[in-house]
């Protein structure tokens, strides 16, 4: 069914008791043209674009648990494209363009709100580097602004720029097209669109292995049986190394906890997403009024999905440095996700040495914003067999050829990113 004002009204009159389920529970077939392993945002977006852009619908998305239970629904929903390197910028800026119109295309309200992303600099040197990044963005056709003094205060009036501070705010890079998207709606919107095109979304079915004959993929093994296929995509975020290992691949990444924290709701005070760089903490206020806070990773390998307390204290201390008024709010919820972080902090997307098997991994804690672009490009790769130009820099073999894509210049270990 199509969602519309008329549908809303009609169902309201019937007491909202007759809305059809968004997803059906199809029986898994014994073969598909394409199998997508992992029903997170990226896998579901790939399914949607396989149908929408390439007319390929003999596709199964096979998810170990339930769709939108992974990092898709654990992230803080920030979208932006303020990256220095061409590779990161181009893919994420393409995504920003797609987010703009996606609610209409999917007939599903993703609540994309371009409320602006404000990245704070704490020294002249840092502001200089932000200016370089802003200029690089402008040269590539995006808008970006460097704000200082009164202009910055006008943009984010809650900042305190007065007095002596250990980490003063010197200025900021602002990208007004950046903002937030409601993360779980992304999973559901893409899933609904793919399913209505005839794609099978199989939940509660972990993939347990791959059958490879003569270097070519021939089947995917699952808890519900064997599925013959010659094309498949691994897109399982924190479980990437485990799944790749089943296909004999060694991925250069580690799985690391990343946490998010949410306060009680209050009246609207903050419209922008603000990122504080003296240590890492970022804050935004949801439409419900809660403050969503996040920071850097816990910094060591973990599959616990349970954050350590030291990092919570660290993020909260920095949150108070940005906005002291937050001290009066209580935390309501807090959780962690397992992020897959590579040795250069950037994603691995494209072919593997197994013919027919594609990989999409290493998005760490910044892959939500890229969801539609990754899905678009991976659908093109799976559908046509040609590697889209946007994906070329993200190849798995870059660690062998020395073309790492370290945006932050943080260094060659996953736990530094």
């Amino acid at each position: 069914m199509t969602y519309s004002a008329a549908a809303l009204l009609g169902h309201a009159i019937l007491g909202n008791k007759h809305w059809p389920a968004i997803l059906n529970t199809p029986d898994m077939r014994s073969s598909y043209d394409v199998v997508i392993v992992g029903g997170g945002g990226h896998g579901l977006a790939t399914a949607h674009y396989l149908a929408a852009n390439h007319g390929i619908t003999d596709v199964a998305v096979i998810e170990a648990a339930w769709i939108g239970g992974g990092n898709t629904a654990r992230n803080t929903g920030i979208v932006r494209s303020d990256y220095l390197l061409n590779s990161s910028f181009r893919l994420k800026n393409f995504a920003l363009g797609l987010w703009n119109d996606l609610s209409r295309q999917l007939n599903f309200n993703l609540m994309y709100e371009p409320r602006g992303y404000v990245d704070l600099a704490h020294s002249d040197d840092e502001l200089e580097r932000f200016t370089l990044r802003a200029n690089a963005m402008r040269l590539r056709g995006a808008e970006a602004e460097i704000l200082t003094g009164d202009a910055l205060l006008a943009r984010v009036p809650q900042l305190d720029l007065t007095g002596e501070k250990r980490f003063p705010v010197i200025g900021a890079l602002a990208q007004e097209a950046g903002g937030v998207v409601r993360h779980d709606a992304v999973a559901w919107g893409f899933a609904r669109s793919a399913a209505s095109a005839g794609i099978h979304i199989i939940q509660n079915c972990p993939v347990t292995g791959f059958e490879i004959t003569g270097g070519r993929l021939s089947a995917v093994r699952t808890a519900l049986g064997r599925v013959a296929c010659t094309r498949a995509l691994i897109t399982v975020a924190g479980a990437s190394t485990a799944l790749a290992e089943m296909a004999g691949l060694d991925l250069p990444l580690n799985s690391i906890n990343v946490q998010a924290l949410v306060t009680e709701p209050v009246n609207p005070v903050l419209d922008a997403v603000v990122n504080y760089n003296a240590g890492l903490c970022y804050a935004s206020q949801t439409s419900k009024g809660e403050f969503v806070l996040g920071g850097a990773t816990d910094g060591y390998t973990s599959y616990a999905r349970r954050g350590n307390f030291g990092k919570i204290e660290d993020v909260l201390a920095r949150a108070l440095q940005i906005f002291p008024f937050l001290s009066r709010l209580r935390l309501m919820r807090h959780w962690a996700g397992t992020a897959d972080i590579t040795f250069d902090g950037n994603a691995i997307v494209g072919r593997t040495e197994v013919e027919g098997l594609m990989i999409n991994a290493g998005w760490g804690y910044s892959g939500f914003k890229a969801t539609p672009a990754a899905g678009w490009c991976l659908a093109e790769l799976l559908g046509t067999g040609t590697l889209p130009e946007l994906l070329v820099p993200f190849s798995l073999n870059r660690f062998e050829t020395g073309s790492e894509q370290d945006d932050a210049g943080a260094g060659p270990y996953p736990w530094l990113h």
Partner: protein
Amino acid sequence: MLIPCPFCGHRDQAEFAYGGPARALPELDGQDGTHAWRTALYSGYNPRGPVTELWFHANGCESWIQITRDTVTHRITRSCLANPREREP
């Protein structure tokens, strides 16, 4: 998470800096292909379960220590100084 330092006892994880999995570097001299180097430098040794790894007690005794920790439960089953020559006999 409390990390047992052989020198200082159980201390909060926030006092330590992470040094990654403890593993022997493969022989690299005379290797001409890039694959051995790639594996040595970029192998994401990432098990679900026990891993032996290095931590630096930065805000403490400044020792490099080696612990065996389960990456799912965070249970630590072994701890010693990283340098074998500094360990108790």
